[in-house]
């Protein structure tokens, strides 16, 4: 006999926003103590626009449907030995990187959103963050379950969790999420909710999932499709947090601008590994890194920043640099991993001639000039039995923790960029002006960076005794999970399964 139907917005307000109340017995600041220290000014939480009006019962219902379908595919995948259907066993190395480096980031995001979902003062924002916390838990767990089958047939997956706290290149991603989680609630929301989820999802999540689709990896791509609507929700939350902060108070604008500048750069540095995955690791390529960057950042991101202009937000001033780096990024990264793959939990290889031709075609300005000769030389050496490994330990950037591999692409792309600054009598090194600026804005934070190479030298990674001890500390199965794909147990098994001699 419903006399009057509330509209969706009013109903959601009653069911959700109206649950909180003005405190009478405690100081609200004691219950939500972290709202002010970042300098953000919130004048009215009621102005928060709920980015999606999902009640909890609807959440359970939709998500359960998705989970049911997803696990049905996982079961079928295992039962039918779905790993045999990938294009080539080399592909599996892409998802080794995904599980060791990306998936633990999902758990870190889950934890960060739980923190903001408890500590933001406005209930609308809190509930949206809580749902994202729950989604991020979904993502790591479904990723683990997707990879669980691969782990039974390939090396390099089994110690993903142990490695996440220790291995040199994985510390790049860990430091990114640690950086966001150790910031205040609003910086976290801008860092992960906006910069990462909204601006960069298409350059991380999408390339891995498309790579899976192109390479016959049904488990991973099914996860990707299943997570798509979660990601869409996360993106709307990311945009709402930005708009909300900017509309709340004009004093928020410079703070938010500083965070956007910092977090887009931090995120972009992580994408180095995605660039390499797209250009070098997929037997069946989706598109080049350069094309992906142009499509998803230069076009889509450009429109976004146009939209934010009216709030006084500007596109970070380093986008010209990124534009120039897109010609180089993947090549520098794969070379780094190829020459250090005695210490990676995945295999590397020299691109085939056909792949070299593809790279020449996709990168006409740079590949033949700077990178192709390197691979031809590497091949020559490998053929002579002199496969080149870098014996030394690289210097790392204090901020992004990536080895100093980036070159001066705007002047001479053969020169490595080195930057450094002094803080409290000590010198700190950086891969770029941007990483240096990030450090200089918060030196007291970044002096604490757990830099893997420093830690090795200090004897904190298995103690003194050389790289063997470090590999034990990493639980890296030397000779199995690392070095060349050619001649690896992975390759050997693959050939046996496929009946190739």
């Amino acid at each position, binding site marked *: 006999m419903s006399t009057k139907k509330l509209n969706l917005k009013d109903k959601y307000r009653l069911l959700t926003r109206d649950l909180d109340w003005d405190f009478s017995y405690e100081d609200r600041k004691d219950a939500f103590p972290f709202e002010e220290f970042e300098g953000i000014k919130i004048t009215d939480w009621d102005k928060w626009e709920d980015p999606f009006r999902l009640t909890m019962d609807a959440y359970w219902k939709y998500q359960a*449907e998705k989970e049911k379908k997803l696990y049905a595919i996982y079961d079928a995948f295992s039962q039918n030995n779905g790993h045999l259907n990938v294009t080539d066993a080399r592909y599996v190395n892409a998802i080794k990187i995904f599980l060791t480096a990306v998936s633990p980031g999902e758990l870190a995001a889950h934890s960060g959103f739980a923190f903001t979902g408890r500590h933001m003062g406005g209930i609308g924002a809190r509930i949206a963050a809580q749902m994202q916390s729950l989604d991020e838990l979904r993502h790591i767990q479904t990723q683990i379950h997707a990879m669980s089958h691969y782990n039974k047939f390939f090396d390099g997956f089994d110690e993903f969790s142990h490695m996440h706290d220790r291995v040199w290149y994985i510390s790049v991603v860990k430091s990114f999420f640690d950086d966001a989680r150790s910031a205040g609630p609003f910086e976290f929301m801008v860092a992960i909710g906006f910069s990462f989820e909204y601006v960069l999802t298409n350059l991380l999540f999408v390339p891995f999932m498309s790579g899976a689709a192109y390479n016959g990896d049904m488990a991973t791509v099914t996860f990707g499709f299943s997570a798509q609507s979660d990601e869409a929700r996360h993106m709307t939350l990311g945009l709402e947090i930005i708009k909300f902060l900017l509309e709340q108070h004009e004093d928020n604008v410079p703070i938010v601008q500083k965070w956007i500048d910092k977090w887009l750069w931090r995120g972009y540095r992580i994408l180095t590994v995605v660039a390499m995955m797209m250009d070098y690791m997929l037997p069946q390529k989706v598109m080049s890194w350069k094309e992906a960057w142009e499509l998803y950042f230069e076009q889509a991101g450009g429109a976004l920043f146009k939209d934010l202009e009216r709030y006084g937000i500007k596109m970070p001033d380093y986008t010209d640099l990124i534009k120039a780096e897109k010609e180089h990024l993947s090549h520098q990264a794969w070379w780094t991993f190829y020459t250090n793959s005695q210490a990676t939990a995945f295999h590397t290889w020299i691109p085939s001639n056909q792949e070299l031709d593809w790279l020449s075609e996709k990168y006409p300005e740079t590949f033949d000039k700077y990178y192709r000769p390197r691979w031809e030389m590497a091949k020559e050496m490998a053929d002579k039995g002199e496969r080149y490994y870098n014996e030394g330990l690289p210097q790392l950037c204090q901020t992004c923790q990536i080895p100093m591999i980036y070159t001066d692409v705007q002047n001479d792309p053969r020169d490595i960029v080195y930057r450094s600054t002094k803080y409290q009598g000590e010198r700190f090194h950086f891969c770029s002006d941007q990483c240096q600026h990030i450090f200089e804005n918060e030196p007291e934070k970044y002096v604490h960076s757990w830099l893997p190479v420093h830690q090795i030298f200090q004897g904190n990674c298995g103690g003194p005794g050389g790289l063997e001890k470090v590999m034990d500390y990493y639980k890296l199965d030397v000779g199995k999970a690392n070095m060349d794909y050619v001649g690896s147990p992975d390759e050997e098994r693959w050939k046996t399964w496929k009946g190739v001699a």
Partner: protein
Amino acid sequence: MTIEIKTAKMDTIRNTFGHIARRFGDKPATRYQEATYDIAAQTNFHYKPLWDQDHELNDPSRTAITMEDWYALKDPRQFYYGTYVQNRARMQENAESNFGFFDKRDLADKLPEGMKERLIKHLIPLRHVEHTANLNNMYCTAYANYCTAVAQATLFEGMDRFGNAQYYARIGLAIDGNTGDSLAAAKEEWMNNPIWQGLRAYCEKTLTIDDWFETFIAQNIVLDTLVDNLYFEQYDAWLTENNAGDILMLTEFMRERSRESQRWSDSLLKTVINENRQNADQVKSWISTWRIRAQSALEPLANDLLSDDALAEAYSALATRLKKIGLAD
């Protein structure tokens, strides 16, 4: 007669991940195990939290409780995300059909005279208590982040409680003709009626607790046991006696959920107090503090809701629960 389809069985090189094998041996693991154990970061954190420079990002020392192995606090329901949402989806389907039945048969109009007003005064304000429970369990998730077995279970609990809050609000909509008037009136009760002020103060107080395990005790053990007994035992009986048993259909989700969730919180607390003497002492001390606070908080409500003996009965339910857990006075 059974038929058997031949499938290709391939030799595996290992059965599960290294950290799972170190706990349970290299044998096929359950999905709960692989989704839960040892996936949270433990060491080598990069930066100190700006909001708490004295601790690491994931830090067991944020509570006075100590555990040799925090993953001993496993969930007997074995809920990871997938099993959790699928279980709740089934329960919400049932709730949906109950709400549908209530609406279709115009059961709101068949409630006895004055009953709607009583529900607005006594039942609907519980949505604010549930909202507090949501925040308190999120607090546990945020700080128990070093152990996914705990952090995920408190997250599920927190989201459940948000779901409960919305179900209470829907009861309001079901009896006020979908206008929302009952919710405004119930909030007025929550904010100003003296019978609720003790509980509101208790709720606000729990939101300022520092130690997340104390939060767990104050919310999931002390308050929930008392409120559940008052509402799901005594008030249910009163409603039935007073020809308003139909309302029980609308609270079935909350009642069933609470019973199920107690299995988890009982098991968790039992493991904590059996771990060492200090844990047991600490838990007892928190319980006695919050038990006293709850007494004065709930008294006016319980007296008005039921009778002057009602709260004593709820306390005896709490004593029974604590005894079962191993926390006899």
